[in-house]
């Protein structure tokens, strides 16, 4: 990605604390249009908190977050239209069918071609044949696929994926892999987190390592191999533990 690309996500001096506990301790970060950024880091490093702030689900304690040039703290509901998110929880309703869930969220996003979009995303995640079944009867992998369908339903230019690959079987992981490749090919801006370094490298244009609420290391994917990344990860995380 060239430096001339404008930043879609711009984070400056971001601090987030829950009561007395400081989770993010000053993060500076830019993600330009069409770029995919993979965030790595041990559990509790603040990845989920960062993603939630970018998704406008959580408010920064200090610092600036601009999404699409708009200050997040002052953003109205309209900005949410441009963001899609996959979180740890599937964010879908158990007793509704897959299709009903998507119909419900289509209403929430004011989609005008709802039926067509729903058919399209169901196809993309390969759930068309199970769309009339209640989510309660889905396997873990199918629920995750529906969660992804829900996130891309309104065709958001910004996608936030918090460990989308957790708990997926081989087949679902394969599907996710192709889906993410395709989504990032559509010039979408993507921020994702994962524990799988190889996969993250494969998906992203740039990787960043989040440790103890700070970005400890950042590099374009082209400049680093999986082995080097693993070594860097180990050194930095161990350095923080001691």
């Amino acid at each position, binding site marked *: 990605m060239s430096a001339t690309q404008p930043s879609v996500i711009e984070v400056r001096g971001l601090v987030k*604390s*829950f*009561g*007395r*506990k400081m989770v993010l301790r000053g993060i500076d970060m830019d993600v330009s249009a069409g770029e995919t950024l993979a965030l790595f880091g041990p559990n509790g490093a603040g990845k989920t908190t960062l993603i939630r702030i970018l998704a406008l689900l959580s408010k920064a304690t200090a610092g600036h977050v601009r999404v699409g040039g708009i200050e997040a703290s002052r953003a109205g509901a309209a900005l949410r239209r441009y963001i899609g998110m996959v979180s740890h929880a599937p964010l879908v309703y158990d007793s509704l069918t897959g299709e009903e869930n998507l119909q419900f969220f289509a209403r929430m996003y004011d989609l005008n071609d709802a039926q067509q979009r729903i058919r399209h995303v169901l196809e993309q995640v390969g759930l068309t044949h199970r769309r009339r079944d209640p989510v309660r009867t889905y396997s873990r992998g199918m629920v995750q696929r529906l969660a992804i369908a829900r996130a891309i339903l309104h065709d958001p230019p910004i996608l936030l994926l918090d460990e989308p690959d957790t708990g997926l079987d081989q087949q679902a992981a394969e599907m996710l892999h192709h889906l993410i490749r395709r989504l990032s090919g559509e010039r979408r801006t993507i921020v994702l987190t994962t524990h799988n370094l190889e996969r993250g490298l494969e998906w992203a244009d740039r990787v960043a390592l989040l440790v103890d609420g700070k970005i400890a290391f950042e590099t374009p994917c082209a400049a680093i191999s999986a082995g080097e990344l693993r070594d860097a990860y180990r050194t930095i995380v161990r350095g923080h533990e001691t």
Partner: protein
Amino acid sequence: MKARDIAMLTLDVIAGVAVLIALYMALVWVPDAANLISPDEKVAQHIFYLHMGMNVDAGLGFLVTLIGSVLYLLTRRRIWDMIAVSSAELGVVFATAVLATGSLWARPTWNTWWTWDPRLTTAAIVWLIYIAYLMLRGALEGAEQRARFSAVYGIFAFLSVPLTFMSIRWWRTIHPTVFSGSNPGAQGGFSLGPHIRLTLFVSMIAFALMYAALMAHRVRLEQDAQAVQELKEQLL
């Protein structure tokens, strides 16, 4: 000593002296109310001055909780939450004392410990609401969420009181309305002579000062507790 210590100590001394004066006036100096006949009633009537003083404190406590709650939601500064919880605790303590002294007074005057009079009942419900407020705080994990939720509840709690009072008042009342004197059915009312007026006034001022002194200590305690918690987290 820091300026704050000096200020708090001064307030302690002033409040302490004021409460001693109020106690002396209420229990020794003030003459028995003229219109009361039985000796028990005459003795019990002296409770009234302290009862009113504590009532002022309970009211102040819950009012300051409301103010702290609203200001916390508007500013998000932790000090307002500390003030709200400190004040709610003091309010509950004094409301308990108000109910107890009221009961002691009611026994000789109304010949019963408890009656379902609107003020008594409202006082008991207000007491329950703020117990619920403290329980809600106890059941929440995160400090920030605890502050937010209890601030919301603090607003509901205070605003429901007038409605509760009105709804209960439309049952018959026997509580003496000392100040308006418009309740002919009330038992135990008495006329306000100059001595009684002065004692009542001093008692209410003294108890208000005591509230201020206790608040200063309680808020500091909350601040210290937070500081200790922060140090603990730094060590871990």
